[in-house]
């Protein structure tokens, strides 16, 4: 067991070294091309984990490379491999110059001096004004008042539904003007009518937090963690109300907990066994490339009519958002070039281009409009519209997110089989989470 993990780490080190060797070799070969600002011929290595984004990002980075006489080399080891590579890279000193940062690991990397403090660069650079980027993402990559990454993108949540299923059972298609109550009602209709075919209305598992139940909690006015990140929000009355709604209205319209533990939501949706699911903008390509993509339609997240005035107020329609950041290795040999690249990738023009190419929505506020039309016939404006018509809530986090988020999902497993346990379980989760937060 240990040996196997070690072998994995060693393999990652080897890959990292090979990448590093390859890059220095490439650098000398390219130097003939020359540069126009004295930094010519260098190779900047960039690591990302999502192969779907490679093509678009490479395109934007190559523009920078051509203007500055540098080569940009991407490594895409996949999510798990990515963090193993960085982990081994930090100990071994072989790191990419520029790489993505994510909310799960940001605190750890910022606190260990692995990331370059960008403050002095931000001050000198006119392209970058942090006020232009989503506040939650900027804040996420701030540690002791210093900035360690520039927001690369943001993602939101929307509902995707299968028109074929709705038409088959004669259920009216959802429109953006719908409440969570309505969502549950439609889902229940499909589950009732589709029972004989094994078709269900929707899908919500214990781990579907960011894409489903976190959104419901915040729409109902609840919270997962307090604003100062010192206390759990699971015992907040509004949170309890929202989760009770999940237990009593959403879960009955879902496949059985045992089925959900055996088959993933995307798989069931793509196989035409589930009518609608909440999903993040980072998954669009998955559905866009499906065989029956023309059956799929995106619609904005429902709202919770908390004040009972019968219309969607911006506070009542929430989408959790999250965003990656471009960060730089603190010991990089080319800090100036690396910064220049990050600055270019984060500029308004590149951020718009990133949306146009359908890579992701922008980290720069107001640059995501083109993303809505980036997928041909598939209209994904639901992800962009909620920015205006709803409230974007940054994905709840603290230094120990990975611990309390996992604890909560685990604690909810028995509740999924027995929804009446919801309230007492939430209080237990809150107590456990407060303990974790106190130890941070």
């Amino acid at each position, binding site marked *: 067991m240990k040996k196997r993990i070690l072998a994995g780490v060693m393999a990652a080190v080897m890959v990292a070294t090979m990448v590093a060797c390859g890059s220095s070799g490439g650098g000398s070969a390219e130097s003939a091309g020359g540069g126009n600002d004295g930094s010519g011929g260098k190779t900047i290595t960039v690591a990302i984990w999502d192969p779907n984004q490679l093509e678009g990002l490479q395109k934007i980075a190559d523009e920078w490379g051509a203007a500055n006489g540098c080569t940009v080399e991407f490594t895409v080891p996949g999510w798990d491999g990515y963090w193993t590579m960085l982990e081994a890279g*930090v100990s071994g000193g072989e790191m990419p110059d520029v790489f993505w940062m994510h909310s799960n690991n940001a605190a750890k990397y910022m606190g260990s001096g692995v990331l370059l403090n960008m403050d002095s660069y931000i001050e000198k650079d006119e392209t970058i004004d942090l006020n232009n980027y989503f506040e939650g993402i900027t804040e996420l990559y701030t540690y002791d008042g210093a900035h360690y990454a520039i927001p690369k993108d943001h993602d939101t949540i929307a509902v995707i539904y299968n028109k074929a299923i709705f038409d088959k059972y004669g259920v009216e298609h959802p429109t953006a003007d719908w409440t969570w109550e309505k969502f549950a009602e439609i889902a229940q209709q499909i589950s009732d009518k589709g029972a004989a075919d094994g078709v269900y209305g929707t899908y919500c598992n214990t*781990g579907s937090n960011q894409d489903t139940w976190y959104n419901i909690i915040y729409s109902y006015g609840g919270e997962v963690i307090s604003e100062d990140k010192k206390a759990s929000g699971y015992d907040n009355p509004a949170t309890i109300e929202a989760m009770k709604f999940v237990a009593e209205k959403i879960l009955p319209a879902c496949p059985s907990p045992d*089925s959900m533990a*055996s088959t993933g939501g995307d798989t069931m949706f793509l196989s035409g066994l589930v009518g609608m699911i909440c999903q993040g903008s980072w998954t669009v390509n998955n559905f866009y490339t499906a065989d029956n993509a023309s059956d799929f339609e995106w619609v904005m997240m429902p709202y919770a009519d908390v004040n009972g005035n019968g219309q969607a107020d911006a506070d009542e329609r929430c989408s959790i958002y999250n965003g990656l950041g471009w960060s730089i290795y603190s010991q990089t040999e080319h800090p100036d070039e690396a910064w220049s690249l990050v600055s270019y990738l984060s500029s308004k023009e590149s951020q718009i281009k990133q949306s146009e190419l359908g890579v992701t929505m922008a980290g720069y506020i107001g640059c995501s409009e083109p993303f809505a039309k980036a997928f041909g016939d598939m209209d994904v404006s639901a992800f962009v519209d909620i920015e205006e018509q709803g409230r974007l809530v940054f994905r709840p986090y603290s230094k120990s997110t990975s611990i309390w988020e996992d604890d909560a999902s685990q604690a909810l*497993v028995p509740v999924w089989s027995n929804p009446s346990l919801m309230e007492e379980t939430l209080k237990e989760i809150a107590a456990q989470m407060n303990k974790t937060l106190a130890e941070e």
Partner: protein
Amino acid sequence: MKKRMSVRARTEAIWGLAFIAPTIIGLLILNYYPIFETVWQSLCKTGDFGIGNTFIGLENFRTLFHDKEVFRTLFNSFRYAVLSLPLTVAISLVLAVLLNRKMKMRGVYRTIFFLPMVCAPAAVAMVWKWMFNQDYGLLNHMLGRKVNWVTDPAIAMIAIVIVGVWSSIGNNMILLIGGLQDIPKDYYEAASVDGSTGVHSFFHITIPLLSPMLFFIIQTGIMGALQLFDLPFMIMDQSSRAWPSVKTITYLFYEYAFEKSNRGYGAAIIMFLIAIISLLTFLLQKSEKKWVHYD
């Protein structure tokens, strides 16, 4: 009496060392260094990326002995060992005896039973996960009934045992066939002259003479079973209500060391497991004299 090495012997020794150097260096770097590092980490509150470890003595172990999760997962590991080992040994022994006779297509059968050993464990787990799927899986389809293979806490461990036994009988069978072929035919002939029948000979000739091989299989089997990690990890989803009943202690180690970035406590858990395995191995070695016959 000690003799000085001749020049020739010394050259030979140097070359010998040179040839095994890659293995020695590999062992030192890949096995021994990590072992000492793990011991050290288990006594530390570890910092990120191995920077800033602070020595806290036996604090991790004190937490460990009060951690119910540790004992629950350890119990699961033992349960797996107790359920899978007798089955593995019994089935591979029967198969070995059957496939050691002269019969048609013997090679074909041996290959079939050995094939699971050739497959990557992760691939094996993925295929079984698909077969166990309660709604769309092959097993339930064939049985015509709905068994919650990996989501019912009462059945999940059995499902894991099935896969574990299925994938290890091949290797054990080959080892036992090797052992069987070392037993001289004369013993059976002599016994049959004295009136011993097949079953009687099996228990009084085959088993005792096979005991060294059986001992080896049981010993490595216990070690392997207590270190079970990949099967539950790959086959089960953590949102399954059966997960707590199959979560093994090595998974708990993985969770602390890699998911919750608490290397120190993870190291303490694995040291605890090493201690238990060492103790079991020691007891087995002691029992060896009682039932293992080397001639």
